[in-house]
């Protein structure tokens, strides 16, 4: 008896059978930041990971480039595979063990070999979500794939768009719930989507209040990638990428991350494209330009400075105070 439930119940009914949980479209950034899980009380009740944006997920559909896939001997003498999958927002960690379909283990060996030979493997997986805790108390996310397959770029692009869309829906819900008392009723009254309320209540109680705006950045990046744009902004706070060359003569080298000059070029191009695409005839106002630059990971100061440059270079005109147009 659960009088509070206004959603389709995730609990088992009298029959003890449970509906299949949907596969939530999820970018790595949101998933890997999670540290909360909820387990049902019944033997067959599903487990959920709850993200900061309030997604309550038992099953996820993720995609990206396979970055690593390595065998590990378990204490019971069987082999499991651990791997990472990189998407537009970060890295997913996953493991394939003997608790999963045998077919996947065979495939994993094949993919691991392909990877060592340097084949790029763009993959999609439908996976169960899992959190685990290390001895020092840190919480990590993991995925246990049920289905895995190699996909093409357009399937990946479509997944990026779907994930971006799903993330934005959660961002919008989380934004509506911001600053409110943590209760389902308050969230519902603020217009939070019904299927997000339960997860958001749990998320807020665990993670506290925060500005979901940060997720827009990765959403923009995902959309940029899906559209096949070049000059996509770097993810902020990413460690320097160390490329390991597997060829015998190869040595480790560090990617040149000191690319300030390129950054400015990217920023200028970004501003140009914003003004070009958002101009409905009257030009585009300053706030909109800055906000869109911020959403792509640039600081407002940098964006402001770059805009000034573009105006003085006569690429863009400030035809009216605070309003900008492409110079004709």
């Amino acid at each position, binding site marked *: 008896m659960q009088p509070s439930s206004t959603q389709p119940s995730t609990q088992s009914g009298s029959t003890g059978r449970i509906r299949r949980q949907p596969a939530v479209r999820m970018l790595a950034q949101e998933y890997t930041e999670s540290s909360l899980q909820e387990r049902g009380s019944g033997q067959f009740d599903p487990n959920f990971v709850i993200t900061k944006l309030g997604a309550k997920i038992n099953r996820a*559909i993720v995609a990206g480039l396979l970055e690593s896939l390595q065998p590990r001997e378990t204490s019971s003498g069987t082999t499991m595979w651990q791997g990472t999958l990189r998407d537009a927002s970060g890295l997913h960690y996953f493991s394939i063990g003997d608790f999963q379909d045998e077919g996947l283990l065979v495939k994993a060996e094949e993919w691991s070999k392909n990877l060592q030979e340097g084949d790029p493997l763009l993959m999609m997986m439908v996976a169960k979500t899992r959190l685990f805790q290390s001895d020092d108390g840190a919480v990590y996310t993991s995925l246990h794939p049920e289905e895995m397959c190699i996909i093409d770029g357009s399937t990946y692009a479509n997944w990026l768009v779907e994930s971006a869309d799903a993330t934005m829906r959660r961002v919008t819900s989380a934004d509506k719930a911001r600053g409110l008392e943590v209760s389902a009723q308050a969230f519902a009254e603020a217009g939070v989507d019904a299927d997000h309320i339960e997860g958001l209540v749990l998320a*807020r109680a665990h993670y506290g209040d925060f500005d979901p705006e940060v997720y827009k950045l990765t959403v923009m990046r995902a959309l940029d990638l899906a*559209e096949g744009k070049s000059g996509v902004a770097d993810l902020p706070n990413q460690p320097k990428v160390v490329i390991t060359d597997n060829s015998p003569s190869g040595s480790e080298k560090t990617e040149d991350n000191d690319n300030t000059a390129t950054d400015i070029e990217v920023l200028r191009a970004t501003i140009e494209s914003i003004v070009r695409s958002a101009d409905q005839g009257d030009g585009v106002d300053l706030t909109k330009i800055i906000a869109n630059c911020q959403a792509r990971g640039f600081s407002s100061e940098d964006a402001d400075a770059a805009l000034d440059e573009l105006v003085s270079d006569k690429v863009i005109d400030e035809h009216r105070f605070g309003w900008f147009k492409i110079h004709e």
Partner: protein
Amino acid sequence: MADEAIEKAVKEVLSQIPDADEDMVREEFVRYHKEFVIPPQDAMRSVLRKVQSNAGIVAATTEQSAGGIQAAPLKKVERLAELGPEDKNIVIEVKIITHNPVTQAVRGRDRDIAFGTLEDNPWGNDDKVRWDYKDWAPSPNLKPGAIVRIEGCSVNEYQGKRSLNINQSSRVIVLQEGAETVIDPTEPMTIAEAIQAEGMVTIVGRVISSRDDVITKRDGSGTIDVVRGKIADDTGSLGFLSWEPFTHQTGVLLKIQSATIRRFRDTPELNFGRTTKVEIFHDSNFADAETLAESSVVTISQLRDGAKDVTIIAQLQSLTERKFTNAEGEEKIVYAGQLIDPTGQCKSSMWCDVGITEDELPIVVRLENARVRAWQGIPDVTIDDVNQVIRLEQKPWDDINVENHVIEAKLSELAKSGSRVGISTAATVVSVRDDCGIIWRCPECRRTLRDDNCQVHGSVTGTRDVRMRMVIDDGQASGSVIIGNEPTLEFLDTDMSGFEDMLAEKGQFGFAQSLRNSLLGRQLKVNGRTIVDEQGMMIIANDIEVIEVDAVLAASESRDKWGLL
């Protein structure tokens, strides 16, 4: 300030139990204060109990003066499983799952009590066990979602089922406030909300139909007089069943407090019992009975198995007479009809001659107070009396293309509605089952054979069939898609012999694997019908098609939608 209070509390404990370990007592008060924000004065009794149980002192002397608690020793447990049927004076930390206050006559006196479900192991992640409880002196600290420590409760065993009694002398200490929604079961909710709810609800609604009915007890021990009907507000309508005398006429506005939502098949029903309070409500702005009755007319897409008193307007496409002999040997006639409306198609069974002739068809009819049953997921509107069928002169909608009457719907919408016929939906393929390909069916019942064995008919020679099974998912719901012989061959663009050749080459597993490679992560459009039950949704496909999505276009649509340039 707090320190002072703690020192005072420590002194108090020591004065009562001189042997107590002073530092331990102090620590305990500090813990309550810091971890649970319980001031020392409120924690006094708990700390005293703990000190007593540590010292092995029976709680008799001090407790009796404090209000007559049974002189049983404190039994502190972590798990409900540790409790025996005779255990009393128990201390346990639990999470409150539900809490329903009611007024009940106990020994001729009305008493406020509460009942609900609680769950042990509230701090752990692992398996949790739920028990029912009864609170004999409703504590304001018992709220759904709260984690509490209950001191002085006892086990009640009735017909082999154990529950907890929270007694008048028990104490309830809140350790963590509930973050979950608390719907006060005495606060009215809309009927739309009540339809989704479980358990106790309070609503305000107008009676739009009501009739006396009799329920025959299953064990043949007699009958119960009940009243059935329908109640509505401007958000929807809900059938009710009153186990108590109910004399309110159609049109009366009522406030119904503490009624229970029960589900029959897929249909929620509001039950009025002994503890339900029904009173006349005054609200001059409330929609009148006629408006509500009109707005409670449903469409085919809204039909639910088990629904009663349904009024629907639909177009009757066909009507065929069918004679059969029932179990008692009587010859019966049933008229089987096909109904459509802009939201879908379904069947109708009429147990009387409604006088509609073939040359009148198709005809738009209004079917009143009908029952809905479903067979293999297809809703069937059942008519028992000729007066339930009203012919309508005019169609309330434009012409429906009967040949091609397919309703497009989102997968997550289909999952929420009842079973439907003639639908089309699209979602991502997230799983392909290994058993795609050739299967063998029982020649008697068409069940799938396992090792040449039918579940019902035993060892049989099977007939061969082709099918594919996969799961599609839109991120909010999933559905299992079953693709039979014809649509499978059509999708693969081959015939039976071509299919056999392909299967001989790839093997059954190889075939499933090739389907995975070509379908996983892709959008699949499925036309067919759905069967929705508590286990989820199944879609029986008439045809399937992979849809190519233009990611660039989709991305720019998404940007527009969310204002991301």
